[in-house]
């Protein structure tokens, strides 16, 4: 039973079609990576799943609660502290116990000792952790992340994934877009390949490698070969 399911999504910007009949779903505890070249429609797909944009065609059936949303650029107020940002969004999310939610997120992100620091003085990695924590404040069944690791160094990236993998135990479905094909292979249960707004593949990383049928290629090589086969 999918927690979130989109069917036949079409999105147009003027005459350009950003999405062409894309369908995608995520079940409890599943991690779905959306990969594809630049301009493939990854951000558009995630923003439609998050409810930020409306599709021109197609439907999205959401989780019981709203999906948590983590934009690519940290959506935080630089002049507010970590705790104040969390508190503000906890209130806007109408969390039953605001202070408890803030405390929980500070512990979960490992930023309890930075709670009173303004966002503007944090590193990019820590900002992203707060960014993700805000997406998780309302304890959503589905967390949507748009290229969450794009601005992070390898160490920060590793810590981010430790944090996200920890969500599996809570049954949270994670749908994320990424440029990093290795990241998709390592952390995703399923990958969705988009190119020019078209859904080219949806399955496990292993299935993608099998589909390409080029022994000796790593996953990235298989992905590139797959795109070539499909004319991209």
């Amino acid at each position, binding site marked *: 039973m999918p927690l979130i399911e989109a069917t036949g999504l079409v999105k147009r910007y003027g005459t350009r079609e950003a999405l062409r009949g894309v369908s995608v779903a995520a079940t409890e505890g599943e991690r779905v990576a959306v990969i594809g070249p630049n301009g493939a429609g990854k951000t558009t797909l995630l923003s439609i799943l*998050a409810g930020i944009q409306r599709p021109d065609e197609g439907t999205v059936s959401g989780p019981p609660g*709203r999906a948590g*949303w983590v*934009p690519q650029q940290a*959506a935080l*107020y630089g*002049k*507010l502290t970590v705790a104040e940002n969390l508190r*503000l*969004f906890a209130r806007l999310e109408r969390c039953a116990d605001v202070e408890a939610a803030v405390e929980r997120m500070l512990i979960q992100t490992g930023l309890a000792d930075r709670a009173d620091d303004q966002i503007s003085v944090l590193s990019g990695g820590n900002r992203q952790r707060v960014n993700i924590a805000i997406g998780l404040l309302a304890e959503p069944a589905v967390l949507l992340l748009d290229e969450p690791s794009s601005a992070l160094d390898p160490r920060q990236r590793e810590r981010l994934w430790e944090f996200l993998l920890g969500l599996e135990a809570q049954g949270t479905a994670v749908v994320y877009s990424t440029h990093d094909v290795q990241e998709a292979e390592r952390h995703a249960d399923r990958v969705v390949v988009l190119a020019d707004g078209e859904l080219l593949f949806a399955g496990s990383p292993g299935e993608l490698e099998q589909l390409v049928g080029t022994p000796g290629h790593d996953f990235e090589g298989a992905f590139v070969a797959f795109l070539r086969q499909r004319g991209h």
Partner: protein
Amino acid sequence: MRWLLVKDLQILRRSPLLLALLVIYPVVISVLIGFALSRGPDKPRVAFVNLVPAEQSELDLAGESIDLADYADTLFESIDPVRIDCEDRDPEECQEEALDKVRDGDVLAALVIPADVTERLQALQSLQAVEPPTVKVFFNAEDPVKARYVEDTIKSRAQDANAALTTKLTEVALSYLDLIVEGGDISLPLLGGDIEILGLERSDAIVRAAQAQLPPGSEARRQLDRVLRFGELARENLDLSDEILNTIGTPIKIDTEILEGGTTPLSSFAVAVAVAISLMFVTVLLAAGTLALEREENAFPRLVRGLVSPTALLAEKALLAAACSAAVGILMLCGLALFVDLDWGRFPLWVAGVAAGSLGFAALGLAVGALAREVRAASLLAFMLALPLAFLALVPSGAVSSALYDVIRAVSALFPFKPTLDAMDAALNDAGGMAGALAHLGALTLAFGALARLALRRFG
């Protein structure tokens, strides 16, 4: 919305420099504008040389003594006199001292009252053929603006003094005419005291009495009839001379009537201008900046995906900007009330004008912020828009062609500055039209609010 307000106030509190600039800059600018509008040029310093001996400063007009110093006071209403002490001094030396002050720049002009001014005026009222007295003015034209001001002021006040003297002389002439008609005593010191004037009326009575003693139809009686007719004609015509002489004294009367606008004192209007300008800068910049900041912080998409509606977000920004600027506006009014006479009884109207103006400017600021989308671009656009709006609204009728003035009025009506100025003028000065200005502001608030809401569709 409450939590967004708290958040914005926290951000403002942590940007003290921005907050200070946002409040202090427009307040300073507006107060400067206010003073510039409310204060005319300072009274120019003018050296005053009175060569008339103290014992000759009084003029006797038909038995009435007039002190010429009273007429000098008229002049001093518009100048700051630097009196040169001429007592027991050579008149030329005294005048030269005044001219030195002009040359040195101590004073802008020197006004010299000649010693024979009383004597000549006395001669004139005695109907002697003498040249009228001449007051000399020497001035420094290094500063053309001040020189023009001095020239205009002295000429204008000299005209006032002339008019006052003319009125007095006319009164004297009329008293002589009354004497001719009615008869009476007149004091003529040159002839050794009072002399009696018979007058036309008494002459008529005497002639009629004499005529009655003559035989009817006699030649002498006919001759006296002619004398009586002439006397009657002269009396009737001289009775009309009062109005004619008064008309000569003031041939053109000035009757002023205000067709449009109130009778607002310039200083009070300057307060309305200062407050309207401050409200405009603070509100437009704050509303535009805080809205554009939501986009720059990437928070807008996160907020409007179910946490806050775009309309509620706009309302929050409008409320924040309007509340901050209204507080600044009210504080300004209270501060300016220390210098300018404002009616505290109208305080509720001040609040209404400030509140309506703030909301109008807030809506404009939101439209600017939503269209510009970046804080720096929004601030620049707000600034570039605000200044011309203020200038346009202050262009007086008659300063430009009527067609251009109509265009300016139409443009001004599309933005909140002019109706805010009208509302503040009405609130402060009972200039009328408060309800119309408030309705105008209400309509503009809705219109710019709708524009901002539309612009938010491409904001994320």
